[in-house]
């Protein structure tokens, strides 16, 4: 049976509730988000409604059985936007309930490992984003950053920047998912945000960008150039958002 949910995490938990209720062999069920649904010819399809009550039951049960850390990992795994997240979650939970309390630590199990890998990829990228996000100062003292992370992790980096850049107004804009976090020195709110167009930079912004590029160029030991290592540590897909690596800006130099 192919179970279909609406793509939200709540929806996934509601569907899990039904799937556990329906029983059956683990290999006979899959769970997919409605937008990722391929036309299924040979299998029956069951569309699941999102029911907060069911979803809450599943969440509570996960918390009670496996603890908050396990739940956090599931949340991260969801943000991986992995097309197979639903099925991976289902299979992982099926195994975990058999094994009991600390089951989520049992990475020797392929189904538990599969979900762990989704979690780990998101955790890793959000840690590196804490370093790679670049702010520019706009005219009215607003610090603006745009980025396009592989995973949907805007919400995960907010607490870090809220604590760190506490005394400045900032915006972090995920231009791929067209949403942004706004911080006003007090609270953060997230809302949709389209392309912002041409930016009006503060008078000193270009000086700082130039000095950062100077620093970047001069801190490297040229005798030991190692582009392979550099790219391995800092994949090219991030470069267009990096002040020190953005080629269009380097051309202006």
């Amino acid at each position, binding site marked *: 049976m192919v179970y279909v949910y609406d793509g939200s995490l709540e929806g996934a938990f509601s569907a899990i509730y039904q799937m556990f209720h329906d029983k059956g062999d683990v290999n006979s069920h899959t769970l997919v988000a409605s937008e990722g649904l391929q036309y299924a010819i040979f299998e029956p399809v069951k569309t699941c409604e999102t029911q907060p009550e069911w979803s809450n039951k599943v969440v509570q049960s996960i918390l009670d059985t496996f603890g908050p850390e396990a739940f956090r990992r599931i949340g991260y795994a969801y943000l991986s936007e992995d097309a197979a997240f639903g099925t991976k979650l289902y299979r992982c939970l099926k195994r975990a309930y058999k094994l009991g309390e600390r089951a989520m630590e049992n990475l020797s199990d392929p189904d538990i*490992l599969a979900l762990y890998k989704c979690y780990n990829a998101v955790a890793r990228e959000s840690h590196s984003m804490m370093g790679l*996000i670049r702010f520019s100062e706009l005219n009215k003292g607003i610090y603006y950053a745009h980025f396009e992370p592989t995973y949907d992790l805007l919400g995960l980096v907010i607490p870090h920047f809220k604590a760190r850049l506490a005394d400045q107004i900032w915006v972090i804009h995920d231009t791929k998912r067209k949403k942004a976090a706004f911080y006003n020195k007090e609270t953060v709110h997230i809302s949709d945000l389209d392309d912002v167009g041409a930016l009006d930079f503060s008078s000193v912004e270009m000086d700082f960008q130039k000095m950062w590029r100077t620093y970047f160029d001069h801190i490297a030991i040229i005798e030991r150039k190692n582009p392979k290592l550099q790219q391995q540590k800092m994949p090219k897909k991030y470069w267009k958002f990096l002040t020190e690596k953005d080629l269009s800006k380097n051309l202006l130099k």
Partner: protein
Amino acid sequence: MTANEKLSILADAAKYDVSCSSSGSARSGDKTMLGNTAMPGICHSYSDDGRCISLLKILFTNKCIYDCSYCINRQSNAEMPRAEFTPDEVVDLTIGFYRRNYIEGLFLSSGVVRNPNYTMELLLLVVKKLRAARFNGYVHLKGIPGADHMLIEEAGKYVDRMSINIELPTTQSLRLLAPEKKRLDMIAPMGFIKEKMSEYKALGRQFKNAPTFVPAGQSTQLIVGATADPDYKIIKISEALYKRMALKRVYYSSYVPVGRTAITVGPSIDLLKREHRIYQADWLLRYYGFTADEILTPESPNLDMDVDPKCQWALRNLHLFPMDVNRVTFLELLRIPGVGNVTARRIMAARRFGPLHFDALKKMGVVMKRAKYFITCSGKPFGASDMDPFRLKQLMLDAPKPLNNQLSLYELYPGQFGGNQNGLRI
């Protein structure tokens, strides 16, 4: 000179100093402050040589009255352009970079102008100004050898980490290459900082608002390859520094000959590779419970460039293997080549649910290429129980090289072929 021009000179001058870590301190700020420090440390970029950029690493000035022959800033290096920041320039640069999320904080060092005390006072002024501007990010300050302890103590209240570079492994090599520097000028302040750290920690336990003192601890740097000192001497010193001085990190910088009067010494083995192996050995000291004497011996005092230090140890101690991953303790797991810290923890956690098999080990991060010769799973060998160290080593090499390349057998197996180094005492 513009700040940008100064930056280019004073970043250049600082780049051979390797320590660029912002870890080891977790301190939160409040809404009126800029910055905090994060425990695991964050890399903000990777320079063209592939090294992590975490801190703004600069010298306050590269003018220097001394003439240490391994250093590009030595007085006699006449073609070196010189510059000096003002304290405000350093403060503006640090804060400007920090607000844009370029860096975790500042790593400030300096050449010695006039005398050690005068220089230390300048550095102290910078960190004071930085904190007065409500900057709460990470600050790593170099202590100037020979400066008054009072100045060191004062500076320690404003910074997260302090380091005094020991530079060379032995007193003899120091006398040779940095005749104006005294060993004691480096060791004494280290001991002093260690004492103060525990004093202030005790104070902190008594009074909530007591000042902190170098909360992220102290580190140091050793230059590798500027003298003929063997690896054994180097890791023996590191071990002593970790144990007796309670250092957080020892950094190793492979010597880059710079300037016209650069010194050249030692065998022409790949210095970067050697640095890499020494870091691995250092890792074994800090996280894997190895002692320096387990890693190397006076009889074979140099690390093998072909296999990592843990493999070298395992090959010398084959009587301890194979180990059964389903039975041995955590500390024993850590001794298996190809099993790292994270993997060992995963194995311990997963073992509770039943015995592990080889395919699961691989998925959990065990590097089977190395581990397979040293482990069994519930008594079963992997099918590679070839326990002859010579053959084993060949099997484990990353890219098997023909035996007759530049390295002679003597160099590969100094122990077996009567290799001997004189004067191995620290």
